[in-house]
């Protein structure tokens, strides 16, 4: 640990901005701002946490008592609002800020934690916890851990082990629970111990249409594609229609739409005869690739 040296007196003042800069906080936050569209409540909470950890480090340098804060979190929101993506980022951020030692993310669901017969659950949960030590444990759809309809369900056992580790080994791992809002609320109502050990409840709002368009732009950039000028309008129209249809899953629906557009673009290019295919052709999604979608069929 790099605590204050006993031989040198603690300094009287420190430069918090310099401290944040040394830990790479501004870079991490700028990257977050660049890569994640929208999600204002999430970003502001991450900024708060970064500030808290910087102040905590400052207090330690001045020899003031500093207790590592509890950073267990709960992410609630509709499908495709970026809960898993942010959890992955959170692991990197907490690592950069020196809160977790390794910065890896272990994503699990009920199946990975809960066993099938008596005595199977505890070792299984412990196995997962061991792997997650020094990093972030992300439990997706955490409400499945608790099945009120079956009082002998092994999920409760898993929850108890989780609670114990969350309380006693706060500096070894961060637990992030994720799930849909209403079902998480039911889960916390029946597990008050869990609710009280989670300091940060972060709600992921749905994306607006312009935000979804920006997300599509980022995804295409990453895949090395670009939209033809008229395809941009087609995409806007596509999003406006898709948002109103059932089973809309925010960014995930956009990703699927783009994957299908790539599929159509590929068939179009393979069918293309008479001239060689240029670099331009290979990277451009045309309006017709998007407009062929079933979404436009009404």
């Amino acid at each position, binding site marked *: 640990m790099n605590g204050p040296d006993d031989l040198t007196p603690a300094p009287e003042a420190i430069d918090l901005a310099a401290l944040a800069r040394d830990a790479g906080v501004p870079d991490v936050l700028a990257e977050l701002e660049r890569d994640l569209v929208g999600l204002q409540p999430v970003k502001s909470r991450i900024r708060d946490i970064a500030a808290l950890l910087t102040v905590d480090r400052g207090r330690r340098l001045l020899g003031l008592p500093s207790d590592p804060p509890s950073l267990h979190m709960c992410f609630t929101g509709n499908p495709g609002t970026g809960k898993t993506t942010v959890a992955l980022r959170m692991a990197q951020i907490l690592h950069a800020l020196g809160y977790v030692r*390794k910065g890896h993310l272990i994503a699990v669901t009920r199946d990975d934690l809960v066993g099938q017969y008596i005595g199977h659950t505890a070792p299984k949960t412990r*196995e997962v916890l061991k*792997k997650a*030590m020094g990093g972030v444990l992300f439990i997706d759809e955490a409400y499945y851990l608790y099945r009120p309809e079956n009082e002998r369900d092994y999920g409760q056992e898993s929850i108890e082990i989780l609670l114990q580790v969350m309380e006693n080994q706060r500096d070894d791992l961060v637990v992030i629970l994720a799930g849909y809002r209403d079902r998480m609320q039911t889960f916390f109502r029946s597990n008050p111990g869990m609710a009280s050990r989670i300091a940060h409840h972060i709600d992921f709002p749905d994306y607006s249409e312009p935000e979804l368009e920006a997300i599509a732009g980022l995804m295409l950039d990453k895949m090395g594609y670009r939209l033809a000028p008229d395809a941009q309008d087609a995409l806007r129209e596509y999003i406006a229609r898709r948002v109103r249809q059932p089973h809309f899953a925010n960014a995930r629906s956009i990703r699927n739409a783009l994957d299908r557009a790539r599929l159509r673009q590929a068939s179009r290019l393979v069918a293309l005869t008479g001239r060689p295919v240029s670099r331009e052709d290979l990277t451009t999604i045309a309006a017709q690739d998007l407009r062929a979608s079933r979404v436009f069929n009404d």
Partner: protein
Amino acid sequence: MRITQGTFSFLPDLTDAEIRAQVEYALRQGWAVSVEHTAEAHPRDVYWEMFGMPMFDLKDAAGALLEVNACRKTFPQHYVKVNAFDATQGFESTRLSFLVQRPADEPGYRVVRQEGAGRAIRYTVERR
């Protein structure tokens, strides 16, 4: 009698912080850490009981310490050791192994001599 098996066994018992530092070193080398225990640390008994699976996907020493403590709690009067296995081709064997718990009372072992056929002298190790 204090038994001396494995690395560091002539040193005072390792503290938890020291165990953690050793495991951290092993993980940095890419070795798989495991915990084993036995009631009888006879020098011939190379294989001890495994306490859980070797931790192949472990990222941080805190996980191994969790396992060590669970083993100490389950078997308070056993010898417990931590092994680090190197799977690299050419090694494929344990690279580091050290005791992390001894029973309060260690009877130890002694060499006994036996006269065999044709006045041959045979030696064996037995528990005191």
